[in-house]
């Protein structure tokens, strides 16, 4: 007869392991995300990422609105990459409806796109400086960013959420004043970005950023990472060069893609700094080559909306954080049957686990900031069956099957 107690295994409780919740409310995080971090003294053993604190149901709201109203809804998925979202959506609709916007409109779209990229990267560099305790560099970088926001206000009327795009073109044109302003700001920006690059090479900053949060190239390819996070680990991908859109078809030879091999936080920061220089020269090129002509196909957007038949399209752009994908399915009656948004932060957030295991607690905010998380973009639904605990990958058939009625 075997005693019950002998059969029960003794569970070893490790009292040195501590589970700390990092977020959703934390001074280091700009947007809510919950990281359940298991640590032993200062070393991180395991990370569990929980999203969903900013879920607003944008995809379901889009099904009750017509195409023009959805344009403004989609702009508000994210504040910093708002122009990328509208460009992607409008490109999809123009493809379904066979509408070709005039060339000047494409160049203006690209101009605002690159300005937004500069804005986003300056934002992130400031946040990165704040995470490592270097408040002065944070203030300096954000002061430079204010000049870009002033430009946006002059051209489009608002600092974020520019609403520049519309079906068949753009809404506002540049006059000579604005062109001169942009040129002068770009010159100042060149000097300021050089100084920011210099400050990021300070010895104390290097000690915090180098050899921290390393993502190997194999891991990056296996997890389908996109954007500067991938380019910092040696994966050479950029939608502007591989699948050109807007005016990038004409500007392909005028910019280069920055790639670094090391895969640590400093490599990703350096990729973004180099992209800043590329954006500045791209903007100067766009201003040089801006063709004359109309800026939109048709002033009355309702007439254009009627021309869009039933159809489905996948559209890709290179948002500041990586590749942004839209699946748009229209129903031919000025409405949307299905809108699926796959933002770049969704694959990037999965890399937190291989990056953080083995780091210290002090590295957690630095690594989280280095993937440039835009949690407002990254809240989408995933279907989990609670009885079998299985998760389904959303594929094209699943997308098509929705709302056939």
């Amino acid at each position, binding site marked *: 007869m075997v005693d019950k107690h002998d059969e029960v295994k003794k569970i070893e409780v490790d009292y040195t392991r501590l589970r700390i919740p990092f977020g959703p409310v934390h001074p280091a995080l700009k947007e809510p995300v919950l990281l359940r971090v298991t640590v032993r003294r200062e070393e991180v053993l395991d990370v569990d990422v929980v999203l969903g604190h900013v879920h607003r149901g944008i995809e379901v709201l889009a099904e009750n*609105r*017509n195409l*023009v*109203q*959805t*344009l*403004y*809804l989609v702009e*508000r998925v994210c504040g910093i990459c708002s122009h990328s979202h509208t460009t992607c959506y409008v490109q999809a609709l123009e493809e379904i409806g066979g509408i070709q916007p005039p060339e000047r409109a494409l160049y203006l779209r690209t101009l605002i796109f690159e300005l937004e990229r500069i804005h986003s990267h300056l934002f992130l560099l400031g946040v990165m400086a704040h995470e490592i305790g270097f408040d*002065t*560099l944070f203030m*300096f970088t954000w*002061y430079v960013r204010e000049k870009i926001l002033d430009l946006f*206000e*002059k*051209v*489009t*009327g*608002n600092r974020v*959420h520019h*609403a520049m795009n*519309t079906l068949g073109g753009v*809404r*506002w044109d540049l006059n000579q004043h604005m062109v001169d302003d942009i040129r002068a700001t770009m010159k100042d920006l060149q000097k300021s970005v050089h*100084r920011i690059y*210099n*400050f990021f*090479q*300070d*010895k*104390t900053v*290097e000690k915090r950023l180098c050899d921290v949060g390393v993502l190997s190239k194999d891991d990056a390819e296996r997890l389908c990472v996109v954007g500067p996070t991938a380019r910092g680990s040696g994966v050479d991908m950029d939608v502007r060069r591989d699948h050109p859109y807007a005016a990038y078809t004409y500007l392909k030879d005028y910019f280069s893609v920055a790639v670094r091999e090391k895969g640590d936080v400093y490599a990703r920061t350096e990729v973004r700094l180099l992209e800043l220089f590329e954006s500045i020269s791209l903007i100067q090129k766009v201003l040089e080559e801006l063709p004359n002509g109309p800026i939109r196909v048709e*002033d*009355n*957007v*309702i007439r254009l909306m009627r021309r869009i038949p039933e159809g489905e399209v996948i559209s890709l752009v290179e948002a500041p954080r990586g590749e942004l994908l839209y699946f748009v399915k229209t129903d031919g009656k000025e409405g949307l049957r299905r809108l699926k948004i796959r933002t770049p932060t969704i694959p990037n957030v999965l890399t937190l686990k291989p990056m953080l295991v083995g780091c210290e607690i002090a590295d957690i905010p630095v690594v989280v900031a280095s993937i440039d998380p835009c949690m407002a973009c990254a809240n989408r639904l995933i279907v989990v069956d609670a009885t079998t605990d299985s998760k389904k990958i959303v594929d094209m058939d699943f997308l098509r099957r929705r709302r056939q009625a």
Partner: protein
Amino acid sequence: MKLGKMLHDALRVLFKKPVTVQYLTKPGEMVPIPERFRGKIIYDKNACIGCLLCIRTCPSGVITATAERKVKFDVARCMFCGQCVEICPKKAITLSSEFEIVVYEKEKLIIW
């Protein structure tokens, strides 16, 4: 020298004027407002012909039709996108530069 790269910059601005604009604490100080700024709606009732095209394109449900075939705006819901300005065939709607639109009673924000 790689250490203390910010020292020169920090000491240089120590006695310069700060870049803060003391809006609301010092009377009269304000950042200049550009002309394309999208502020509060101005509605010209006489120019309006009651086509109701603005209601079809407003993303936030700001505009409602009234009994006399004109429209009414609830500025509290507005996101200042400017779509109604574009679509109106008689240019009856414009966006002003006014952005200080805080009130104690919500009824004051309805324009008709």
